[in-house]
Each structure stands twice: as C-alpha cells, then as structure tokens.
C-alpha cells in the first residue's frame, strides 16, 4: 500500500472547507490522475500526501506512516512533490545548483549526485541550461527544472500538480513518456490535471473531485465518457469522445465510450463494414 486517505476533512485557517470526508487508496505502482474544476480541492488533497498539510479530521498514511506524526523533510525522501507554479520551488542562482540542492542536503555521495543529475537533465532536455539562472528561463523550462530537482531524489512516490500546463507539444509528449517510464520502474504516480486529452492518451486511473469530495473513481475510459461526471467536474470530453457522441447521435449503434484515436479508428472501420 502506498497512500491511504481515511475520512479526510480539511478546513483552511480562513474557515473555507476544502476537503469533505475524502477516502481513497492508492496502491504501490499505480498511476492516478485527480481531475476536477478549479477550486475542487485537488491541490489541497495532494498536499496531504507529503505532509505539507495535516488533516483537520481523518488520516493520511503514506507507506503506513501517519503524516500527522511525520515531518515534511522525512516525507521528502519517499514523496517527491512538483508544484503547479515552478516559482514556488525554485530559489537558487543556477539550474545546476537547483537540481543538486536536494541530494546535497541529504548528503548523497557527490558522484551519485552528478550521475543522477546527468540522467534527469538528459531526460528533460535541460543540458544546455545548467549554467542559466532559473528565473531567466521560460515558464515551460522552469517547470522542467522544478521537475528535475524532484526526480533527482529518486522518490518512490511522485506527485505532480498540473505537469503539462504551459508545455508545448514536444515537452508534453516527453513528460507523458517520462511519467510512463517512471511508473513502469515501479514508482507510484499521482498527478492533478485538467488536460483531458493527456489523460485520454495515457489512461491512468481517474479520481474526479467536486467541491471537496470524490465523486468518481475508475478507469479513464469510464470517467471521461460519463456526461454527468464531466458536467459536475466542469471537464469537457476528449475530442475523440465528443466525436463518438456526435456520430452516435445519428447512428445509434456507434459506441459512446471511445477515448483514444486508435480505438476510434477501430470502431470507425468496423462500423463501415
């Protein structure tokens, strides 16, 4: 078991209740997307996964450690957290220092730090930016630096808040590929995203949230083709799903639960026969 959320409530000091009786189990090695409208409580939920926020009520267990009793530093070795806004985690003068900061603080051996850094910068296409200041970089580049500085710690659980936001097509594909690889290496991945097209192609388990509650939890294919859930979470169906619905409007035998391009092609060719 990786993460267990039990009857979690969270109320901000301002009095706003952001989470309302959330229960959720994330197994080791799973790949989960948490989806929902702005303000649904997604980010508040994942901030509990590394102890940044402590439950107002209920419990969050990470590898059987209760986050109430553990420090964020302790959790940082297990849980890597990549913020939505990279400026919230970048503060050093060069990209290289930024990436080395975590492992240096944990006294990893210098050679290993160098080796791990080489790996992530190659992976994230940051090699020729190592000497630059993070603040001279574009939004998309800064986001990759923030991701690199977390990945270099080799966390067992990786939490990403809107990893594809502001990324161009190539970086998006790289991120999708990288997340898949990290997941195949056995890491647990939890990400928050609005990007239905990304989720349609990557097909993680989807947890849908509205107003601080989980309203659906299932396969991407089931959640993203459910009109009621989409409406409640203010998500739009993937383009391919919308096309399937439009076709099914006129040809009732056409399946409505189609989310990927390849599924759509198969269905179209079958339908043609």
């Amino acid at each position, binding site marked *: 078991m990786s993460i267990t959320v039990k009857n979690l409530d969270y109320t901000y000091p301002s009095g706003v209740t952001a989470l309302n009786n959330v229960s959720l189990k994330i197994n080791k090695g799973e790949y989960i997307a948490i989806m929902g409208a702005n303000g649904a409580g997604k980010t508040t939920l994942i901030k509990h996964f590394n102890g940044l926020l402590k439950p107002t009520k209920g419990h969050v267990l990470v590898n059987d450690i209760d986050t109430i009793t553990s420090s964020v530093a302790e959790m940082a070795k297990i849980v890597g957290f990549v913020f939505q806004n990279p400026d919230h985690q970048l503060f050093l003068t060069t990209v290289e220092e930024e990436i080395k900061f975590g492992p240096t603080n944990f006294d990893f051996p210098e050679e290993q730090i160098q080796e791990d850094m080489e790996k992530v910068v190659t992976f994230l296409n940051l090699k020729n930016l190592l000497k630059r200041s993070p603040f001279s970089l574009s939004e998309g580049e800064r986001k990759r630096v923030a991701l690199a500085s977390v990945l270099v710690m080799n966390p067992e659980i990786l939490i990403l808040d809107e990893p594809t936001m502001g990324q161009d097509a190539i970086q998006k594909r790289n991120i999708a590929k990288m997340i898949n690889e990290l997941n195949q290496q056995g890491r647990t991945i939890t990400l928050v995203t609005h990007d239905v097209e990304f989720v349609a192609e990557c097909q993680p388990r989807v947890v849908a949230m509205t107003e601080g509650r989980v309203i659906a939890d299932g396969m991407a294919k089931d959640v993203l083709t459910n009109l009621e859930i989409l409406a409640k979470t203010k998500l739009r169906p993937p383009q391919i799903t919308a096309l399937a619905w439009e*076709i099914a409007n006129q040809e009732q035998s056409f399946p409505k639960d189609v989310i990927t391009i390849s599924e759509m*092609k198969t269905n179209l060719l079958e339908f043609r026969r």
Partner: protein
Amino acid sequence: MENIIQIRNLKFSYRPSRQPAIREIDLDIRKGEYIAIAGLSGCGKSTFCRCLNGLIPHFYRSGVMKGSVTVDGLDTRELPLYEITQKVGMVFQDPESQLMALTVERDIAFGPENLGLPREEIRARVEEALELVKIAHLRERAPHELSGGEQQRVAIASVLALQPKILVLDEPTANLDPAGAVDVLNIIENLQVQKKITVIIVEHRLELALQSATRLLIMHDGTLVFDDKPEKLIAKDIIPAEAYGVQMPSLIQLFTQLMDEGHSFSQIPFNIPLAASIILSELGSARSTSE
C-alpha cells in the same frame, strides 16, 4: 483591407550580448483578423507580443530593437506607452498579475481613470466592458476571490475599457480549467465578431483556438515558419508541425491517420459536428464504392 499592424525587419535581443529573441519578422495584419500563434516554449512568442504593445522597446530598455512595428499607422518607437495601450490591449497568462483593485468595477475603471476621462465616460466604458465579457453580476466582488476563468474575464474587461482596436493575449487560458478556457475563448471570439477587434492570441490548445482563428502563425527560433490558414497546416507534413511544438488536435490526428491509411476526405474538419458529418457521409460512401 487595411493593415492595422505592419512589421518590417523586426529583430530584438534582451541584451546586446544575448542571442536575439526575435531574429527576423516581417508581417502584415489586417483589421479584424483572428490570429493564433503557436510554437515551442522559448521560440519568441511572448517577446513578439511585447513588441506589439510597445513594452518593447519602451519598457525593456536594455534590449536592442531593429526594424519597425507600425500599429494603426503609427510607429511604436515614436508613440508613448500610454497611447499604445489604448490601441493594443494586452492580456497575460496569469490574470492575478494584472488585477489589483478591491472590486471588479474599480479594476475596470482604473485604466480610463488614469487617462483622465470624464466621469460619465468612465462609467459608460465600465458598463460596456462588464457587458461584453458577461461579468456584470460580479461587479462588486473582489477579484482575488473569483475563479481563474472569472479573473481572466475581469482582466480582459479592464483592457477593453481602454477601447483598444487590437487585443493581444499571451496564453490566456493556460491557468484555467477546460470550462473556464472555453468561456474565455468564446468571449474573445464574440469581441472579434461584434466589435471587429483584431485578435492575436498565443494558445497551445489548438483544438480550442482553431475553432475561431482564421490565420495561424507558427514561430520557431525567433522567426515565422508558418503563416497561413490553419487548414493549410494539414496539407503540409504533420511531423514538421509537431517539431515546431504545435500539437495537432486529436481530431486532426484521427483524420490524418485515416488519410495515411488510404481513406480520402473532401476536407479536414476543425470542429466536431463537421467531423461527424464528414465521417458519416464520406466513410459511408467509401463503403458503397469499395463493395
């Protein structure tokens, strides 16, 4: 039709020693066009936007600008920034960076107040802007309490109160959820249709932007590598488009893949209803010819 923007031999570096962010751009934009700009991160899109609204050269003074940008017949180098902002309204990715007043209404009034306009005129402009972006019901609210999509609409309204002829939007939907993004893009389309405002929008979500844009620019490494109707993008090879950071909407990918596999279609659709009707009529007719 009249060119509202003329760009000649534009080059720009943020510092004399730095690589140029804009290497060479020549471009004419006609009044009332709706232009989408795409490209890899770091390709110069945001720099280009700053050239349009005069932040370059007036604000980024340590930079080196060559060539000229003419907006509504006037050279931006010779026009003070406050005059350019009345011609070119700029909306950024993060609406919070643009909002500062305690109520929505005050925020929208800020620009016209600073121009020293008469009270009645300010009031009329605020009302019009509130109506145009459909946020009259939010007038008394504090901008920081609103959702991202609402905040972005307030930011657009604040810019509209200066009655610009051109609206430049730098990834205005990047921080919004899908419903908020659609809201904002619908509002923008409306402005272009109703008010004949020229729209220039940097947008990664082509599946949304291409429903309204009549012209697509792709930037790469500080130059324009594509400038044509969006449909033409498909006629060219799909792979170079992606190398330039342009993510083909999955609808377009579907059609391109079907065409690669030997199907032919009368056109490539950019919206769902058209796509469905093309599939139903043309994949169907393929059935009758192949049998």
